[in-house]
């Protein structure tokens, strides 16, 4: 796989140009973190990424530059490999039996698949929120939030308490749960559970947060709350969100990438661009058809 990666990096000059563009575009909220250097922006670059389940190729040659500290939505019909693709970014894809990834994914220039990057470490830097809220049922609310911190150790009890509160505040959940931090995470409502999972994810201070249809199991009110939260979090994190909901994509994202499926059922990237442009004036007929079909 290593040699394959090297080859793709050397040959994909077209992708390099796009990268240069993406890097040149100033991040919308970079000012809020002046201390962070340009090399610590959370710039995610995918080059010729393919993902397979055994012999089946679910994602084909995706090249995509994700703008730092913004929200990028991945949209497209069911089964076009969007979820598979974001699972390659934090190296979750390879945990399934027979699943493989080729191509290159880098974060601020560091190849996430290089030999000196341990997948366990990569997942701390690239956090993930899942489709179904999945608080750990045997842990309390505060234990859920601190679970990632306790794994690595080296954080004192009082520090942990502070981070738990801070994370819950950022996830807009603190006021609802501050009285019952010792209760199991599963005692919360679905929307609260998903915000708990977001708090849990940001507690370990990742640079990128991946969200795999985070609202698909929630009612409209809970969905709106999560969407607001996503907008707030974009000030600090690079967010990639998979969604089936066109309105949601248009509400929360800065950039949109549209995926489709070829004749072999392999997902590929059709086009990408600023969300407003994609929804009003897409370049590809395929995109236009999908978006209009969905909007009726």
């Amino acid at each position, binding site marked *: 796989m290593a040699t394959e990666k090297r080859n793709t990096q050397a040959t994909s000059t077209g992708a390099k140009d796009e990268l240069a563009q993406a890097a040149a575009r100033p991040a919308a909220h970079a000012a809020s973190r002046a201390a962070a250097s340009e090399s610590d922006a959370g710039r995610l670059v995918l080059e010729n990424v393919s993902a397979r389940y055994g012999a089946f190729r679910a994602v084909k040659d995706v090249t995509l530059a994700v703008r730092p500290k913004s929200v990028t939505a991945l949209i497209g019909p069911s089964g076009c490999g969007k979820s598979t693709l974001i699972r390659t970014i934090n190296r979750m894809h390879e945990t399934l039996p027979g699943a493989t990834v080729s191509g290159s994914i880098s974060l601020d220039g*560091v190849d996430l698949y290089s030999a000196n990057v*341990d997948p366990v470490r990569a997942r701390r830097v690239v956090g993930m929120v899942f489709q179904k809220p999945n608080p750990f049922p045997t842990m309390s609310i505060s234990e859920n939030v601190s679970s990632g911190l306790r794994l690595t150790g080296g954080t004192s009890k009082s520090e942990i308490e502070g981070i738990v509160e801070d994370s819950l505040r950022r996830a807009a959940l603190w006021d609802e749960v501050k009285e019952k931090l010792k209760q199991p995470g599963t005692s919360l409502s679905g929307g609260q559970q998903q915000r708990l999972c977001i708090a849990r994810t940001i507690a370990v201070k990742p*640079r990128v947060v991946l969200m795999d249809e985070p609202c698909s199991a929630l009612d409209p009110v809970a969905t709106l709350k999560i969407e607001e939260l996503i907008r707030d979090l974009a000030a600090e994190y690079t967010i990639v969100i998979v969604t089936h909901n066109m309105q949601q994509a248009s509400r929360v994202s800065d950039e949109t990438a549209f995926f489709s499926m070829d004749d072999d059922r392999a997902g590929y990237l059709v086009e990408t661009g600023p969300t407003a442009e994609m929804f009003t004036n897409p370049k590809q007929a395929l995109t236009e058809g999908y978006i209009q079909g969905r909007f009726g």
Partner: protein
Amino acid sequence: MQMDTIAKLLTQPTASERSRQRVSWVMRTLVGVSAFLAILPLVALIAFVLIKSAPYLVPSFFLNNPLDTMPGILNAIVGSLQLTGLTVLISGPIGIAGGVYLSEFASPRVVAIGETAIDVMLGVPSIVAGVFAYLVLVPVLGFSGWAAVAALSILTLPIMMRSTQEVLRLVPQAIREASLALGVPVWRTALLVSVRTALPGILTGVILAFSRALGETAPLLMTARGTNAENWLDFSTTMNAMPIVIYQYAAAADDLLIGQAWATALVLMAIALTINVLVRGRTVNSRTA
């Protein structure tokens, strides 16, 4: 901490991370070793039984009775098949009927009570069933095949009731409702739709109960007791059975008898394993508690 660059976070392992990875590796090894240990007994047992029994597996072993000049265990093979066969014939229909009742008719309250009774009966040790038959039936019927069949039936009844109920539970309610909506009476629906759909699973339960009864020893020692004579279908007197032969010959001081105990164990094990391979091989993933 916030100030660490991504490059540093991604590429530089911390001390705690190294030890975490080491623990994960050690546990992974331990878990694999445990799986190996879990199958080791089967391998060792089969190998041993094969080696010890090989010299005694001659035609006369299968064709003659214990007192013949070339002694064999024919009467035990015949006895075992008769005892377990009759046990299944008696407890099978009763168990299946009870399972059908629990799944198709019983109110939630009866289901709760019935399931509790099944759980308790499933946990009854075979010796308890044996003592029961010894105390209650042997004084009346004497040491006999009937007493043995009664003891074995106590053990197989809950197995078949549980397996019947569980496979019937897997029959989708929609199929039943479709039949009832066509005006088919409840009893015909239960038999022709539910039981028919679940029949392979129900039969699996019956066969596994047969296999379980075939290996039972303690209840037989107190009831059928064993004999050197060949007994065809006379359940009112003592009968021989393979588990009895193994148990009694194992304690003998005679090399031939000990060898025949191993050979009988091989036959018994071969039957039990063949049944299980055939049945479970088809319906992998069946859960019998």
